[in-house]
Each structure stands twice: as structure tokens, then as C-alpha cells.
């Protein structure tokens, strides 16, 4: 709510001064024809004085929805009420990146009706993130624009949730209804679902012994089962930098756009199906993490957190912390998932070191490469050349990562992770060497 006064405009001064002066000339110089010239101005002046606002102005504005998905639109509405003489109102919104308005000019006008004016403007957000809807300059005027009232609104907070990319995964799709999620655990352990028959090992329960098979093979055999543990997808986002151009949901996507939308897609695929999904972003200005959880509420938490991800940008590597510190922070809980999916452009050498160190700890890690193809498109030939050199180095680094047993895949939407998830599930059933 805001109250400001009405003040006369240049038009009112022009009409009043013009009328008075010309009428004075007519009287002094005995020129009645001049009165005809003064007549319109005099009528406008008298009309303006009669309709002068005589009461306080009430203003209220609001945004239709404080939270949107990328590409969705909402409506900013304002009501100006109060003085009886109010005739029209106009509003102009300040331009902002990744925000489109309807009308595209960002300016609207409306006429008064029954003592109030209703203004409405469509606002569309084309990129995820938390950005305010910019200030709106509002002007109201009386008949003949003689008096005007103006104000600038406050910014309205608008959270734009990422629009998850299309994603589907068929790997490990043997549903076991007795578990929490639809997908069984990839690890053998205590559980109900039969996994196979294996030799007896110290610690195995006696009731697991398969006596028939043991009698045939002359050694103790036990029924192995899949662990009764729902799948835990730990999403890790590398937000150290944002490479490439971000043109919103309708244009080219930057590396962080790709990471956030892919993370949203994976979370949207697994969380509603009962799988535990967690999120942690590193390289951000502030720590962004969501502990493991399931369901639509967890999905909403993850999308909300993704919308708050901001690259550290100018923050130095020293202040971001060493790889060991980052690994310690990531390993504090969220990353100890059954399957860790790291979404990264893999440009920062520290990120590559982090991936390798996580893999060497025995964690099942998948790296989703989100570096956009257009990153080398630069008007400056030297920048483009530098990018090509860096990409050559990066190709060698990726080969080293893959040699460490960590799959690196490009984000392609549906089925992007199927093959690597199957490989990891198969590998999880075998013996592993873990560096300690």
C-alpha cells in the first residue's frame, strides 16, 4: 500500500497559463477573436479544476503466482482507487533478463471505471532461478491529464523452478513390491528377493542354507538375496562456473542450465516412485543441499533448491576449499548414496579430481557431461582457439576418468543413464577392491 499526492502536470500549467494570458491579451487589446483561441484552453482548465482529485489514493498490486516453472507465465495486477476524478492509468515494468512481458513492450494502459483502474500485465519467466519481478512504474491521471499521481512498486519475489528435461530409465527395472521404491537395491544383502546361490561364508545365517544344493555339491551353499534397501540416487551438481550462453527455456542452454534441468529430470523420475533422492551442489556461493527423501514433497524440495543454485563466479578457488574439503563436505551424508550422479561440465580440474577421488572410495559414480556444444562459438577468435585447446586437454582428462572406472555420459534425455546404471549394478554384485 502506498499513498502519494497528486500534482499538476505541464499540460495543466499550459492550459491555465495559456487561457489566462490569451484572455488578458483579448481584454487589453480589445480582440474578441483571441477569446475563441482561448476558449478550448479555458474549458480544459475549468474542467481540470472541477475534476481535481480530492481524496487519498489507494494502491495495491500483487503477483498471481510466486512460483512458476520455466516457460510459465503469471499476471501482475494492480488496482488504483480513490479519487473520483481518476481517468486513466499506465504502468511500465523495468526490463529484466529472462523475463518476458505481455504485451512485449512491458507497458499497459487502462481507463478508469467506477472510480478505480485495474492494470494487468503478463510476466513470463524463461529461466530457472530466484529473480524478482522488477519494479513497475505506475502513473494515474485525471481528465485532460491535468493532475498525475505516480509511484514505483516494490519488487516481487518470483521463484522459477527448472523445467526438467525429458528423462526415463529402464535399468534395474525389476520391481519388487515389498520394497519402498520400484527398483530393487543393486547390492546383495539381507532381504527377501532371491538373487542367487553362493557358497557359505562366515556370518551367513543358518536359515539361508540351501540344503538341497549343499547336499549335491558337498559344500554349504546359501540362498543369496538382494538387500532390502531402496535405491538412493545422490545428485551432485558442479556449479563452480556457468559455461556457454543461457537463452532461457526457448533457446540455448548453458552448462548450469543443463545440469539443473538434468538433475530435475532425474529427481522427477525417481523421487515420486519411492526412491530416495538427495541433492548437493558444490561450487555455489552458499551451500545447497537436500538430504535423502522420497515422494513429491522431496521433489519439490529438490526443485526449490535447484532454483537457488548460483555459480560461485568470482569466488576464488582457495575460498571454495580444496578437493579434500569438498569431498569431506560431500561425503558427510548426501553423497553416500547407492548411486551418485554428478552433473558437471568437467572444466574445473578440481571437479575432475573430486570425481576420481569419489570413485576410488568405492562409490558408484556416474558423471553426466553437461558442457554445451556451443561453448566454442565465440566472436573472438582467440577465445575460440583457447576453448578448442582446453577441450583437447579435457578429452584426455575424461579418458583418465573413464580409465578409473567412472562412466562419463553426455546428457541425451531418455535412456541417458540406462547402460551405465546396468553396468554399475552388475559390477556391484562382484567383489570390489576399495582403497582405504
Amino acid at each position, binding site marked *: 500500500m502506498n499513498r502519494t499526492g497528486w500534482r499538476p*502536470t*505541464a*499540460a495543466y*500549467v*499550459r492550459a491555465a*497559463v*495559456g487561457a489566462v494570458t*490569451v*484572455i488578458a*491579451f*483579448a*481584454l487589453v487589446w*480589445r*480582440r*474578441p*477573436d*483571441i*477569446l*475563441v*483561441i*482561448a*476558449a*478550448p484552453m479555458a*474549458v*480544459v482548465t*475549468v*474542467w481540470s479544476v*472541477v*475534476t481535481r482529485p480530492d481524496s487519498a*489514493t*489507494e*494502491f*495495491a498490486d500483487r503477483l498471481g503466482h510466486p512460483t512458476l516453472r520455466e516457460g510459465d507465465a503469471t499476471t501482475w495486477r494492480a*488496482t488504483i*482507487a*480513490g479519487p*473520483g*476524478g*481518476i*481517468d*486513466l492509468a*499506465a*504502468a*511500465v515494468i523495468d526490463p529484466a533478463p529472462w523475463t518476458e512481458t505481455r*504485451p512485449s*513492450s512491458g*507497458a*499497459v*494502459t*487502462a*481507463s478508469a*471505471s*467506477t*472510480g*478505480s483502474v485495474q492494470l494487468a500485465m503478463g510476466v513470463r519467466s524463461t529461466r530457472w532461478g530466484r529473480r524478482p519481478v522488477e519494479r513497475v512504474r505506475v*502513473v494515474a491521471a485525471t*481528465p*485532460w*491529464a491535468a493532475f*498525475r499521481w505516480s509511484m514505483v512498486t516494490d519488487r516481487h519475489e518470483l521463484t522459477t523452478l527448472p523445467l526438467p528435461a525429458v528423462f526415463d530409465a529402464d535399468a534395474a527395472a525389476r520391481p519388487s513390491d515389498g520394497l519402498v521404491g520400484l527398483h530393487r537395491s543393486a547390492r546383495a544383502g539381507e532381504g527377501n528377493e532371491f538373487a542367487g546361490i553362493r557358497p557359505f561364508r562366515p556370518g551367513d545365517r543358518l536359515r539361508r542354507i540351501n540344503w538341497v544344493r549343499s547336499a549335491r555339491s558337498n559344500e554349504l551353499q546359501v540362498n543369496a538375496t538382494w538387500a532390502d534397501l531402496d535405491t538412493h540416487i545422490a545428485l551432485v551438481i558442479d556449479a563452480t562456473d556457468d559455461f556457454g550462453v543461457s537463452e532461457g527455456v526457448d533457446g540455448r542452454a548453458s552448462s548450469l542450465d543443463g545440469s539443473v534441468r538434468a538433475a530435475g529430470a532425474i529427481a522427477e523420475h525417481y523421487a515420486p516412485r519411492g526412491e530416495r533422492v538427495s541433492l548437493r551442489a558444490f561450487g555455489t556461493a552458499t551451500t545447497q543441499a537436500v538430504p535423502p527423501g522420497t515422494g513429491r514433497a522431496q521433489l519439490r524440495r529438490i526443485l526449490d533448491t535447484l532454483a537457488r543454485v548460483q555459480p560461485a563466479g568470482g569466488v576464488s578457488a582457495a575460498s571454495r576449499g580444496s578437493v579434500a574439503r569438498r569431498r569431506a563436505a560431500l561425503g558427510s551424508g548426501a553423497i553416500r548414496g547407492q548411486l551418485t550422479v554428478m552433473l558437471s561440465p568437467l572444466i574445473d580440474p578440481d571437479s575432475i579430481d573430486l570425481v576420481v577421488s569419489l570413485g576410488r572410495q568405492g562409490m558408484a559414480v556416474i558423471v553426466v557431461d553437461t558442457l554445451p556444444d556451443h561453448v566454442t562459438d565465440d566472436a573472438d577468435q582467440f577465445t575460440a582457439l583457447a576453448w578448442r585447446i582446453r577441450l583437447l586437454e579435457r578429452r584426455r582428462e575424461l579418458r583418465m576418468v573413464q580409465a578409473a572406472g567412472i562412466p562419463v555420459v553426455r546428457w541425451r534425455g531418455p535412456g541417458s543413464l540406462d547402460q551405465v546404471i546396468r553396468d554399475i549394478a552388475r559390477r556391484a554384485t562382484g567383489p570390489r577392491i576399495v582403497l582405504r
Partner: protein
Amino acid sequence: MTAGALQRCIDHLWLIAPQRWTLIGISVVAPVAASTITSFEGGHQIVPVLVLVIALAIGAAFAPESHTALVAEAIVVWQWLASTDDPATPWVVPMALCLFAFHTTIALMAVTPIGARVDRSILIRWLGRSVYVVVATVAMWSIVYVVSDQDLGGNAVVTFAGFVTLSVLVVLVRALRDPTRSTQPPSSAAGDL
């Protein structure tokens, strides 16, 4: 002008809505027409005055909140005073209405954004009001014509009294019929949000 300022100027022009270009056109043509009518009535064209009026009209169109329009109107009125002698000439009516059109378009542009399309209801409302002004102007000229025809010695006091009476009548009639002058308490409309 630096390259940056020139670019800003071009960007500013690019933002102007097509409808506003029409208003700009009216606001430039109207004072030029008033000056031309004055020259026609006076019998000779003063080119420097016409050029000055054009420049001021363009300046007022692109800076409607300034007092440039007042200067343009003053020059045209002064030109009329200096070049015409016939107090009952009918050319004073179109000249006065041209100045009125100039004043109105500048006033409307001053309160509307350059990129906005002015709502049709606003234009209709302003045109409706203008009809009253046109009627008042013609009535005023009729009074002046009758007074001049009767050779009453140019009694400006009588003319002025007639003008005031007519203006008050017009405003009263308009105020009684204007639906926007509501008696509804302002808080009730705001509370609907």
C-alpha cells in the same frame, strides 16, 4: 553526440509504439496547420516562424512533459495577433481547434509510456470530451461573430462573461453525465483484491 548516446537515441525510437507515432504525427501537424491557417488569414507566410513552430512541435512531441509545447502555442498565438485584424473571421475556429488538438495529444503522450498502446476506451473517452470543447469553441465564435456584427464596440467584458457562462455550463453538464465520477468509497474497490 557520442556513439553511445546515438545508440540510446536509436533504441529509444525503436521502442516507440506504432500508435504513438500517430500521436506524434498529430502533435506535429496540428501546430503547423495552425500556423499555416494564420499565414493564410494574414496573407503572407513567415517561413522562419513556421520552421520554429515545426522544431518546437517535434521537441514537444518527444518531450511531452516539458514546457516546449507552451512556447509553441505562444508563438502561434502571437503570430495570429500580429498578422490578422478581422475579429469575426471564421478561420479562428480551425486555428483554435488545431492548437487544442496539439495540446491534447501532448497531454495524452505525457502520461502514457512510449511503448504502450493506449487503450481504445481511453481514446474514445478523450474524443467524446473533445466534442464538448469543439462545441464550446464554436459557441464562443458565434458570440464573437454576433457581437462584431452588432458593432457593440468590441465589448470584451460582455464576451468574457458569455465565455465564462458557457464554460461553466459545459463543465456542469459534463460533470453530471460523466460515469467515472463515482461516489463509491475508495476502500471498497481496493478491498476486492
